[in-house]
């Protein structure tokens, strides 16, 4: 059993929980995820690690209550137990000193980009954060992101906070400035995590500039240890498994349309829950 030690509603959609899982906390690295089973009848739900604390033996999960299992998870309180957690899973994000790294995220993806941005910062990179949400109330981890970014840009779809628009608009502007400038350079890496439409749009845009871009994928999974193949995606024309070959992939090579299609597999069933 895995006990919830802390819980915080970040806003009406997104919840943060800290759970006792000392073995996972000890091995966790930026970019990795866990599989959670809320109760014994539950499904295996993959969630990216938002943070971990080796000393206290805790892991932090931040999730959006979009479906049956995330809603069930959201109803648990401090002191309640989760039936099962497996992890850390997937390859950690490849962290090294590269120069400048753009860390882009939308919605709950901000929770997932945060440990990655922090790890790149600790490795000596200059971090430009570009994060967005639908409106001011749904924006999460602004303070934490400010703490690890050299510059942070924020967008909201409705303009209720900072810049109105999409994270891609900021990226386009930044690239335009670089294009005209004589002394600034394109980033060594763009790292993005969020809705597929956002990652696809970022990948399509950076491809034109040949700027290395990594996207972190969250396909459908069951075991998440390479056994079922539910998470298979096409990258560079080859079928790979999101769980064990990823979750990070070269965004310019990902077949986002196929991934979008595969994510719809259980739409009808999920509606019944």
């Amino acid at each position: 059993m895995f006990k919830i030690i802390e819980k915080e509603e970040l806003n009406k959609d997104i919840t943060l929980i800290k759970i006792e899982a000392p073995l996972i906390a000890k091995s966790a690295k930026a970019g990795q995820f866990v599989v959670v089973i809320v109760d014994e009848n539950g499904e295996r739900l993959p969630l990216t690690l938002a943070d971990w604390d080796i000393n206290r033996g805790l892991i932090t999960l931040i999730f959006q209550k979009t479906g049956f299992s995330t809603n069930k998870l959201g109803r648990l309180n401090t002191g309640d137990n989760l039936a099962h957690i497996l992890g850390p899973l997937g390859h950690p994000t490849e962290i090294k000193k590269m120069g400048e790294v753009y860390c882009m995220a939308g919605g709950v993806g901000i929770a997932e980009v945060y440990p990655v941005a922090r790890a790149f910062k600790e490795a000596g990179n200059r971090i430009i954060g570009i994060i967005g949400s639908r409106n001011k109330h749904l924006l999460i981890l602004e303070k934490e992101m400010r703490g690890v970014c050299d510059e942070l840009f924020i967008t909201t779809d409705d303009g209720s906070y900072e810049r109105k628009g999409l994270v891609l608009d900021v990226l386009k502007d930044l690239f335009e400035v670089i294009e005209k400038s004589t002394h600034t350079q394109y980033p060594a890496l763009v790292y993005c995590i969020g809705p597929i439409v956002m990652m696809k749009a970022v990948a399509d845009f950076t491809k034109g500039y040949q700027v290395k871009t990594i996207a972190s994928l969250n396909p459908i999974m069951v075991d998440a240890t390479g056994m079922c193949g539910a998470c298979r995606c096409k990258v560079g024309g080859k079928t790979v498994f999101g769980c064990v070959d990823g979750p990070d992939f070269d965004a310019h090579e990902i077949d986002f349309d196929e991934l979008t299609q595969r994510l719809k597999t259980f739409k009808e069933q999920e509606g019944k829950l």
Partner: protein
Amino acid sequence: MGMNKKLFKNFFEVALGFSKADAEKEAARCLQCKSAPCVKGCPVGIEIPAFIKLIKEGKQKEALEKIKERNNLPAICGRVCPQEDQCEAACVLNNKKIPINIGALERYAAEAILKMGTVPKKRGQSPFLSPFLQHREKIAVVGSGPAGLTCAADLAKLGFKVTLFESLHTPGGVLVYGIPEFRLPKKIVQSEVEYIKGLGVDIKVDTLIGNTFTIEELFQDGFKAVFIAAGAGLPQFLGIEGENLPGVYSANEFLTRVNLMKAYKFPEYATPLNIGTRVAVIGGGNVALDCARVALRLGSKVSLIYRRSENEMPGRIKEIEHAKKEGVKFNTLTQPIKIIANRKGLVSGLECIRMKLGKPDASGRKRPLPIKDTNFILEADTVIVAVGQNPNPLLPKMTKGLKTNNDGTIKVGHNLMTSLQGVFAGGDIISGADTVISAMGAGKKAALAIEKYIKDKNGK
């Protein structure tokens, strides 16, 4: 032996066991041959005539104890072992009439544990555990499928302190995620797992060795040897167009959703399964037959597509017969070449080509060859790919110095030791996908090899 009357309507066990009278009558047919060819046919060397004699004498519990000397999982083996290729194939009665139904007798003996409650209630208090052997060294077993369970049980019987690590949330490996309820009820697996816990084995689920912690960390933690039995979990695909469409499942995904996650009880259980009215299962092995029969029970019309003829099918004859009786349509000498989508991007059919058999290939089976211009479309809205599994690459990838062969299997010496000192491996992770019993054989062999390794190291 009776059969479940409401076949393929539910997930109840299909093949029913012997009654006491039937078992004793069948046991009485055994000639009690001195040479006992059946024992040589058994990968774990059960003293078959001896346990059959005990059944004949009405001593069901003693028969079980006799089997348990060699086999830790008789209730499972009695059901899923291919006896027709092993002990029963070797039975001398094959020459005259029909061989002894050894599998059903083993299963009958195993029922004793359920009836008589010989499952030890407390850890380490098993009637099968010798109190004299107490080596006390800590040994780690990775993977709780048939190889891991067997090795853990044998090591515990030898007095070792065994911890069994499982990445899934339920122990049993392929016995729980792969083999369906109607062929191997999960309560049977659970009772065998309880027996193994009773021997003192500590089972830790939700632990992925390589990720949660490494083999190196196991040694740092005081384990003196490690047995890797991570299985052949990586599903193979055909590499044909349309294979990544929604509605195409690997056999592992389909079976795991239904067997382990109980998607057939959705929404009581939260794991969904989207299955159409027409299901095509590709493959001819036991896994393909399991998928077909599961799909049938979920209310679909099922076609099994196999590129050779029925004679070459690797599945057990009994399972092929069950599948046919239940209504699975066999499309043999048929090769799928493309999965077709409708306008919504969902599976609508399978383009296939007819095959004929040519000369035998490297596997000894006749090579299937396509017949030109025989393409046709088989309508289907769900496709299940059951064409084999490769060894799970995760642990070798995460373990420095652990050498593998080109096919992904872990390299081992004759004593099952890998390229790493004190690290042993067995089961499907060294052989590729094989039977439950051969994995158990490897588990037994590894337990003895580990005992010898520890003794040699201790200089005894």
